């Protein structure tokens, strides 16, 4: 979602500053969340050039003899080859959406969506950095390994302007993972275009939709005027409680559409709510990053 009216833009800068002021807290929260999850130099769950044992298989004629695991082969009459799991250092790009629409917190939630997105991204950065992955922020921090990634990211957030809800794809190399934490309230056409563009770069997208519980359940009633924080557009509801069903249906349809597009493009898509613990979102991201990719298998 691009920033709308200028007034909202300045507002979002001010908001971003206040967000920056809270970064140390968010960093601590991220460390705490990350401490509960383990990420390692993780196996690819296929044989490869790793160090951990994966499987024994029968020796195929023509293979170099040094591959034979003699200790295993000595136990019976067959020759076995010891296969190790394929391990590789991955490049993961992280992108939290800090656009004005993310700067929303209802009474039902404890945090703004943007804060939650930052926590998730920082925590994920710590986990990945601990696992030796190359992690970066497109257009802001180049992808490199390290154990101080959250701090570097936090500094970058302090400096940079992340009002955009979609990362630039220029620095993204093919076959890298891109984690996007956003509310994905943009219209499906735009999202479709972006997916296609990402697909052309053969990036693997992991999408986490962050929603406020109020956005999910629509707990409003009475005469209300709703205002879009990005465009400033308003919608006057005479009886908001009557809108609930229609809104729910439309929100689900919107989400289904994105999920459908993501599935078609081979991306993972999941939903996280700000009234849930941040660790849930982290686990989702973690598993989707570690999970087998249809696309890679097919590739």
């Amino acid at each position, binding site marked *: 979602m691009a920033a709308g009216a200028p007034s909202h833009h300045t507002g979002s800068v001010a908001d971003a500053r206040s967000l920056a002021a809270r970064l140390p807290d968010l960093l601590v929260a991220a460390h705490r969340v990350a401490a509960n999850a383990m990420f390692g130099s993780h196996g690819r769950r296929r044989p490869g050039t790793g160090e951990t044992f994966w499987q024994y298989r029968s020796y195929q004629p023509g293979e170099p003899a040094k591959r034979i695991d003699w200790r295993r082969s000595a136990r019976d009459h067959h020759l076995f080859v010891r296969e190790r799991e394929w391990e590789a250092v991955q490049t993961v790009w992280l992108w939290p959406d800090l656009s004005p629409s993310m700067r929303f917190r209802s009474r039902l939630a404890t945090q703004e969506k943007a804060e939650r997105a930052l926590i998730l991204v920082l925590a994920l950065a710590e986990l990945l950095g601990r696992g030796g992955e190359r992690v970066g922020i497109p257009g802001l921090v180049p992808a490199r390994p390290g154990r101080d990634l959250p701090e570097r990211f936090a500094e970058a957030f302090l400096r940079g302007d992340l009002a955009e809800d979609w990362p630039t794809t220029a620095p993204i190399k093919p076959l890298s993972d891109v984690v996007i934490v956003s509310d994905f309230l943009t219209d499906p056409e735009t999202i479709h275009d972006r997916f296609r563009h990402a697909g052309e770069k053969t990036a693997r997208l992991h999408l986490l939709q962050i929603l406020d519980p109020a956005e999910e359940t629509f707990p409003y009633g009475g*005469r209300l*005027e709703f205002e879009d924080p990005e465009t400033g557009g308003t919608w006057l509801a005479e009886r908001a409680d009557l809108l609930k069903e229609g809104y729910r249906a439309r929100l689900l349809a919107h989400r289904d559409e994105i999920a459908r597009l993501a599935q078609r493009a081979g991306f993972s898509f999941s939903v996280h709510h700000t009234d849930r613990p941040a660790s849930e979102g982290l686990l989702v991201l973690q598993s989707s990053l570690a999970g087998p990719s249809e696309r890679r298998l097919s590739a």
Partner: protein
Amino acid sequence: MIANFAFLSPWMLAAFAALPLLWFILRLTPPRPTREIFPPTRILFGIQEEQRTPRRTPWWLTALRLLLAALVILALARPALQPSANLAETRQGPLLIVLDNGWDSAPDFATRRDVAARLIDEAGRDDRPVAIAASAGEANANLAPTSSSEATRRLAAIEPEPFPANRQALADRLAQLFPAGSAEVVWIGSVLDGGDGGSFAAALQNIDADPLLITAPTALSVLRPPRNAADRADVRVSRIGPAAGITLAGFDSEGRRLVDTQTNLAANTDTDVEIQLPTEMRNEIARFEIVGAESAGAVQLLDGRWRRKSVGLIAGEAGDAAQPLLAPLTYVERALSPYTDIKEQSGETSPQAIDKLLTAGVSVLVLTQTGNLPPETVDKLRRWIAAGGTLLRFASPNIGASDPELLPVELREGERALGGSLSWEEPQAIGRLSPESPFRAIEIPADVRIRRQILAEPRSLPQAETWAELSDGTPLITAVTRGQGRIILFHVTADPRWSNLPISGAFVDMLRAIVDTAKPAVRLQPENAASGDAVPTPARAPSRSSPWKPASVLDGYGRLRPPGSKAALVADIDAAAASAITPPGLYERGGDIRALNTVTDETDLTPLDPSAIGWSGRVGSLAPERAKPLWPWILAIAALLAALDGLAVLALSGRLVPRRAVTAGLVLAALVVIVSPNKVSAQEVSVEEALAGTLETRLAYVITGDTLVDETSKAGLRGLTEYLAGRTALEPGQPVGLDLANDELSFYALIYWPMTAGQTPPSPEVMAKVDAYMQNGGTILFDTRDAGNPMPNSALSATPETQALRQILSEIDVPALQPVPPDHVLTKAFYLLITFPGRWDQSQLWVEAIADQPDDTGRPARGGDGVSPILITGNDFAAAWAISADNSFLYPTVPGDQRQREMAFRAGVNIVMYTLTGNYKADQVHIPALLERLGQ
């Protein structure tokens, strides 16, 4: 009277024209919706368009707001219920308005005039002739009915007069002018009856069978003539009407306020206000006035008679202090001391004493046994007399040696003895008191007998005045005026050896008359400054027959004015009373000032009561019937509607949270309940309460507001009640808790008052009630209940309960206290006790201290007079006595000893017996002696 409805600001009603516009605006402008930031707003776009109602205010909200606006406009127009307009009943024929304008009508005369003016206006509207008659007006005022404009002019000329209304004279004139049934009569009556109310009412009812009397509810405070006492002035104030507080002030002749005092007057009674003021200051006072009373009746003018004279007494050489009944001065002093300042110089020689007194300044100098005086003293005395001093001399055997300058008449040698053993003559009575003298008001005392007197040379008599003669014409009291002063000689001694005059009542009257007519204190100037005084300007002796001239007169409002043309010369000021020709004020004759006051001691202050004067007509009230404003109520309704509107807007915008609404409603309702007047009349004692309190003897305790303490008090008194019923002849009823502010205390002989920490002391009114209860024989048992606490011994660090007690006792009159002495009747009232333990046993019981009497030493018990109004302990009696419903004790005693519990009960029994029987047990010690005397 029929009330009608009116608007005080009717032009505000024009704003109703704007209501349609308001309706239009309100209809078009719905309440502003709440704005809610909502990121997925774009998802909302385009859904459920058909559900959106037009952006209009609901009709009922518009109606509510229109009603609100209409009510506000209505309230701004200030509608009020007006009292009935017409006072006069019939609308034709002449209208006779009788307006009382005596001094008692002055405070609210403006209202009276307004009512009269309204009546005249009404008559003018009905085109009927009006006659207006003032009851204290001039005797020849025009009473004939005229046009209303002429009547208005006449009304404007009527002022309240400083003297009482002469209704009788007016009734006579009215009877001539108005035959029966010729006019409608409205009498605007004053506050007082004045003695002629009944006959006047009858006269008015002759003219009109159904007249209207408009009476005044106004109260009146009236000053009676003040009295001088030795160290204060007593000013009597009569109050007619409800109780009120007034400020009484004394002014000097220049109008400066010298003293003021505030006092509260009880309803319909006389109150003596004591004004403490030194004599010198008191003598300066020329006028007492009730500040702001605006009536001639609230002013007392004072003249020279009022000033407290100082009288110097000179004993002379023969003063004999050892036998006072034989000292002549004793009788003079006794006669004068209630009214005057006696200045006595004793222990010195006469000349020295005279010097001192003259220099200090006295009004009257009394010489009793003085004969010759040194020439310089004689000279001083002469100068002093010329300057205004009054020398009062009494005969004595040595008076013949006196300087003739200091005697009014020449004296013959020797004295005349009447009724002695060598005399044929009987003792003489007083034959005549000169009407020209100050003694004219004194009755000739029939029982006075003169046995011996000195005689005047007949040739010197014409130069002097003879104030009193014996029945054979011999002068008894002679006087002469010298300069400003005078010399008075009693031809008898001031002791009863020569006559019984000094021990008769007439003697007091005579001396008082002399002192009253004396000039205020004259101070002899020192020699060097007194050269002019040595030869005083011969003052023209005022002729006795010249009249008193009004110097300044009071108007009806009690202000001093120059006399008007109506004020006439007064021949006899003492016989004069305030009236139209002798208006009250200051009268002057030859430099002598006399005050004539509106109100004297004899003035009848009976209020005008329609039923007492036989009034058969209608009765109205002067109090203007206030327009009863309706607009506050309308505003209140509008405010209610505004609150409803707010609720409606909240409900419409979906922000009305039911739980909060209920809370807010409860708070609002509570506020209304708190604000609504909830007056409980405090002093009303219901019959049931009185019967419950008096039919049985009941123990009582003070409800402190601390639930635990109150429960303990109740349980404790219940325990003591059962113990009393079991052990003694007394069977009290159930104990009762008292709310000091609202309950009558006088039904209970003993009230138990436990102290609690942090107790706020009752209000001063309540403490006054408690004080009255204690003064009138009630006993309060204060219990600080803190003997078990670590007791700080220092007086500065008392326990909170003790501090509470001190705070309470600081507001009441507490007698001197002492711990119960071993021989106090409290230790013997029922049981023989040494200590008075309660739950604790550390504290002593304090009672009113009994003065040690020498003859009490042998008695085993002392009670003092009556019962101690106060008992103080810290032993927590109630906790020791407290029993539960199943008769088990509620609190352990400390130290835990069953005997202590028993002793606590016995202490309670003794206290109850003591309060009920007083010092009866102390008197019983006489029984053996009585039995012995009976010969048993």
